[in-house]
């Protein structure tokens, strides 16, 4: 059996805000077309880790990153086109952010920002992404209305549609379900199961059961340390390698 192809390789990643180090030297790989779950209590550096991946950490003025992150073999600290990197990685934030634009423009924003202007192409992208995010049927008759006027759950799916609009190969979801109801959550989870055939998904979640349902492998991150990384099955089994993992996923601590 050949080893799975690596799409992201992280080596000795350290991240500090000012003098406070929030990620202490984590090393792991993410394979192509897997759902990679990251669980852990709040303040353990999950969101910061994602921000390192697409280098939006650059916008935080007191952040210092060390170690290497390679995306498809390329060291992201040395790549020239940072915007191409961000397009390669779709990012969905915890709280739904509909941009104050129409639904159509929300999804067409990224394609337009790379200079795509042909109406037919944009129409096609908008329809495809909204369908992928399971939102198309609800909004297809009112694409001109404001994205911010949608309900929270719809806005979150709009955010996912926007993250898919630049055809990412990696989709990061940062606690996407904290602001939406369980029914919508399940619909989005179904969407993710379909997407995994085409892209790699990194799923950061506070709901350990969500990681259990979806993830192929799960990493337990606690206070900036990678405690354990194993197949989801092992992490959620009765005897993971570390007791702390068992305690966290079973709600004894955290």
């Amino acid at each position, binding site marked *: 059996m050949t080893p799975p192809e690596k799409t992201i390789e992280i080596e000795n990643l350290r991240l500090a805000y000012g003098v406070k180090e929030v990620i202490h030297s984590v090393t792991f790989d993410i394979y192509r077309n897997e759902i990679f779950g990251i669980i852990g209590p709040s303040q353990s550096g999950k969101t910061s880790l994602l921000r390192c991946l*697409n280098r939006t950490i650059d916008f935080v003025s007191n952040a210092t990153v060390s170690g290497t992150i390679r995306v498809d073999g390329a060291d992201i600290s040395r790549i020239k086109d940072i915007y191409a990197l961000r397009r390669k990685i779709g990012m969905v934030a915890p709280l739904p952010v509909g941009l104050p634009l129409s639904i159509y423009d929300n999804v067409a924003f990224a394609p337009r920002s790379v200079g795509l202007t042909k109406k037919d192409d944009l129409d096609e992208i908008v329809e495809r992404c909204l369908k992928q995010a399971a939102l198309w049927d609800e909004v297809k008759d009112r694409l001109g209305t*404001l994205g911010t006027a949608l309900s929270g759950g719809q806005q979150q799916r709009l955010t996912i549609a926007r993250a898919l609009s630049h055809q990412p190969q990696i989709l990061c979801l940062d606690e996407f379900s904290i602001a939406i109801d369980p029914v919508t959550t399940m619909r989005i989870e179904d969407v993710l199961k379909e997407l995994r055939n085409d892209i790699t998904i990194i799923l950061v979640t506070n709901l350990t059961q969500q990681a259990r349902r979806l993830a192929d492998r799960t990493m337990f991150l606690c206070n900036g340390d990678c405690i354990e990384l194993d197949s989801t099955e092992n992490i959620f089994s009765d005897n993971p390698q570390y007791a702390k993992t068992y305690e966290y996923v079973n709600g004894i601590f955290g």
Partner: protein
Amino acid sequence: MTDPIDPVTRFTKTDFVVRKERIQSVSKILFSLMVISMIIPLLAIIAYLFYHALPSLSWEFLVEVPKKGMSEGGIWPAFVGTLYLVLISLAIAAPIGVFAAIYLNEYARDNWFNRIINLAVINLAGVPSIVHALFGLGAFVYAAQFGYSIISASLTLAIMTLPVIIASTREALASVPMTFREACWNVGATRWQTIRAIVLPNSISGILTGIILQVSRAAGETAPIMFTGAVFYKAVSRGDLFPYQLNEQCMALSMHLYTVATQVPNVKESLPYATAVVLLCSVLFVNAGAIALRVWLRNHKKW
């Protein structure tokens, strides 16, 4: 069975609640008195001005030139002069101020250099206008050799309004939620694309209001223009919209008010008051325009 109690008695007021309510009503009265004490002087000023100005107020007064050594006639040259100074100074200060604010708020990193710039902007906004006047005199009239002229006075006013425009623009930009910017960056948009598509459309009302409010400040200032380009009297024909060249001196309303109120003998009694009314009304008119614009833009706001 206990005695049936009227359920309403369960909600009777205790002493503590009575005291709480008393404090609440006293503070309400106190604060509303403060509001009234703020409004009364304002209304009194306006009423007083209009009462004294009434004999002179007419369309003629606005478009007529001063006569008999400025003791009679209208204020057209001063009115147009103020218009010139305000428009030119804003045409200089607004673009510089807005772009500087965009840089400071959107691009600049939080380092010592930019902190010093911020400090400088805040402090510049607090510098008295007479100091700006002296600077304008030295820099534009003498050093740049523009002489006593409209251009010197406008540049001085521009320097004076610039820090406030920067501050108000930054505030407007900062009111756009950070999450919008992050969402744009996440899909690979550059900073400028983000500013263009999201930040500016959603802060334009605040930016414009900030700029327009500086009109009234520029129109009302006397010291900066007195030192750099305003003159007591200039012969201008009645109702002429383009009486001045940029390198000439001009009359201005605030300066004219000072002159007719203190320097000219035997002025018709209502003349200074009428001048003040014109100045006040122009400022109110512009401010009302700013408010209308803000309301209109806010109704079109998208989140």
